[in-house]
């Protein structure tokens, strides 16, 4: 024991509780160290005091009384120690760091998922889709009045249902006016409470399959039937354009191309399988997409078949390095008068892409990947945006997206063969930027899960 540590024995000297060894060490050191000797001499007063049995008894009584009045728990003692406090503080800091990190990570993941949706500036408080409207307003009625009627005629309960749909799909899905008129005509016998109207919309699948071909020609120049607010300067609502007569178009009435593009695979499979297996039963169920998410449909487990996700492409056209051109009403694609066009492509799963271009005079030829690279296709990662410049002058652009690598023997012939686009579901969403420019983003999804390839024709409109 060093001389410094011998000072610690002073307490035992006063209380006369030192062991023989400790005494030997302390007194030997005191004879060598004057400072320690002085300290011991000063401690002699306390030693005399504590040597008095009366004083000792009084002190013990006082200490026992204080200890009995303030019982200490082991936990409190543990927390009073510096090491305990350090441990508790460290654990608390680590706990909060984990919680905070997890939240930040979740927020970042959510933000990444919503980034595409938020850039399209969808109105937050979208009204119920027009499919829930019990009465159809006159076709020639001004648009503003139509919105007022729709807003005022929808009951709060229906608004709540519609709010859920809007929340699920983040954008209000509005069908074209013609289709709304037809729906109101076919649904006119079913003048029921509004909440039933929503169920009937997806429930009457067999009726609508017959009329789906009539709805198919609905062109892309449909004006939005409703807007999320009554303001005259309200940006145009997203327009869902069913371009093909899909056999499962009734599913599309509940599942937009955009929701299928971003939707989780299990949900979609379950919905489709349930719809195909038990159409009558699902017709009695709610038309909301959320109610089809469960793994059990009507008490039976839904079968998940084939590929887990439908093929989907999201594309938009921009002119001159991202400067968005003003929107034209009758524009199915985009035409750049000055220079090249940037084709922005996003896919919902990993796959291979080809871009073909054709003019009135030239046959289709491969634009992407560049033919000089001796590659027939370029691999795309899901939800990674890709910008492909397209030279001016093309009348039509064809996108080929496939899960499997393109065969070298299949080249131009397939593109020119004009493959059927049955099963394709397309939806265009127009963004209203603050600057007044509009950007149209189109979602194309093939509802048939067994299809390995998705073919999208993009006509470049003329000015």
């Amino acid at each position, binding site marked *: 024991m060093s001389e410094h*540590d011998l*000072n*610690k*024995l*002073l*307490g*035992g*000297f*006063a*209380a*006369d*509780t*030192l*062991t*023989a060894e*400790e*005494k*030997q060490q302390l*007194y*030997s050191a*005191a*004879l*060598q160290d*004057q400072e320690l*000797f*002085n300290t*011991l*001499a*000063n*401690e*002699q*007063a*306390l*030693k*005399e*005091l*504590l040597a008095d049995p009366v*004083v*000792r008894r*009084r*002190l*013990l009584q*006082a*200490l*026992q009384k*204080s*200890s009995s009045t*303030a019982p*200490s728990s082991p936990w409190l*003692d543990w927390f*009073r120690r510096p090491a305990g406090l350090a441990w508790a503080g460290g654990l608390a800091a680590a706990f909060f760091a984990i919680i905070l990190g997890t939240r930040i990570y979740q927020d970042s993941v959510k933000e990444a998922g919503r980034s595409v949706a938020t850039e399209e500036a969808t109105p937050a408080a979208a009204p119920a889709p027009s499919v829930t409207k019990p009465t159809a307003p006159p076709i020639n009625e001004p648009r503003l009045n139509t919105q007022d009627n729709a807003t005022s005629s929808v009951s709060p309960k229906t608004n709540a249902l519609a709010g859920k749909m809007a929340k699920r799909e983040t954008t209000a899905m509005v069908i074209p006016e013609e289709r709304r008129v037809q729906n109101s005509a076919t649904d006119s016998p079913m003048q029921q409470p509004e909440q039933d109207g929503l169920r009937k919309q997806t429930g009457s699948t067999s009726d609508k399959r017959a009329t789906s071909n009539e709805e198919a020609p609905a062109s892309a120049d449909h004006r939005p039937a409703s807007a999320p607010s009554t303001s005259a300067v309200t940006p145009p609502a997203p327009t869902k354009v069913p371009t093909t007569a899909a056999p499962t178009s009734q599913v599309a009435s509940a599942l937009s191309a955009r929701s299928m593009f971003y939707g989780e695979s299990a949900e979609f499979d379950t919905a489709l399988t349930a719809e195909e297996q038990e159409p009558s039963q699902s017709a009695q169920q709610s038309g909301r997409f959320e109610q089809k998410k469960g793994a059990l449909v009507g008490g039976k487990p839904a079968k998940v078949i084939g590929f887990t996700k439908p093929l989907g492409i999201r594309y938009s056209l921009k002119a001159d390095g991202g400067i968005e051109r003003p929107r034209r009403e009758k524009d199915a694609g985009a035409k750049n008068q000055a220079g090249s066009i940037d084709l922005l492509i996003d896919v919902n799963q990993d796959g291979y892409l080809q871009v073909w271009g054709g003019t009135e005079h030239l046959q289709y030829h491969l634009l992407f990947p560049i033919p000089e690279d001796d590659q027939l296709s370029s691999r795309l990662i899901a939800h990674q945006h890709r910008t492909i410049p397209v030279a001016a002058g093309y009348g039509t652009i064809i996108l080929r997206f496939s899960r499997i690598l393109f065969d070298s023997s299949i080249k131009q012939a397939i593109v020119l063969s004009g493959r059927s686009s049955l099963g394709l579901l397309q939806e265009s969403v127009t963004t209203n930027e603050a600057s007044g420019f509009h950007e149209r983003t189109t979602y194309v999804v093939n509802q048939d899960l067994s299809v390995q390839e998705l073919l999208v024709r993009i006509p470049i409109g003329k000015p």
Partner: protein
Amino acid sequence: MNRDQILSALRERILAFATSRVSRDHAEDLTQDTMAVLHEKYPLVSELTELVPLAFQVLRYKMLDAHRKALRRGEYNQESVEGLPLADTGDDPLTQLDQKQRVDRLLSAVAQLGERCRELFKWKLEGKSFPEIQTVMGQSSINTIYTWDLRCRKQLLTLMGGSWD
């Protein structure tokens, strides 16, 4: 160390300590008186662990006697001898009061100690040695007990005003 070596070392230390408290002449007298007591009254005490504390005790008594004698002689305040109390074999009231005040201060200071210090002090008053206290407090190292005791003693000394007297 034999008795003579211990006494020689003790004399040196006692003189240095006394010099720090009183004048050199008085310190020499105190040291001589203390050594005389150790030589004459305790010739059989030869162990270091007995001789050193005995020397501390004798030295303290001698210093208190010298203090009283100086007080009695009016060395601090020149008062007439008639005003001084008569000698008593027991503790005089001043000593008793001083003792009582010291005990009160000690009780008050102990009451202000922390829980651990009170426990430690209690076990020391109960006669437990440091190794025994180490066992009671469940500490793996006795140095922990030494350190706690040193801190508690310093805290107690501070609460008592910086002096045990």
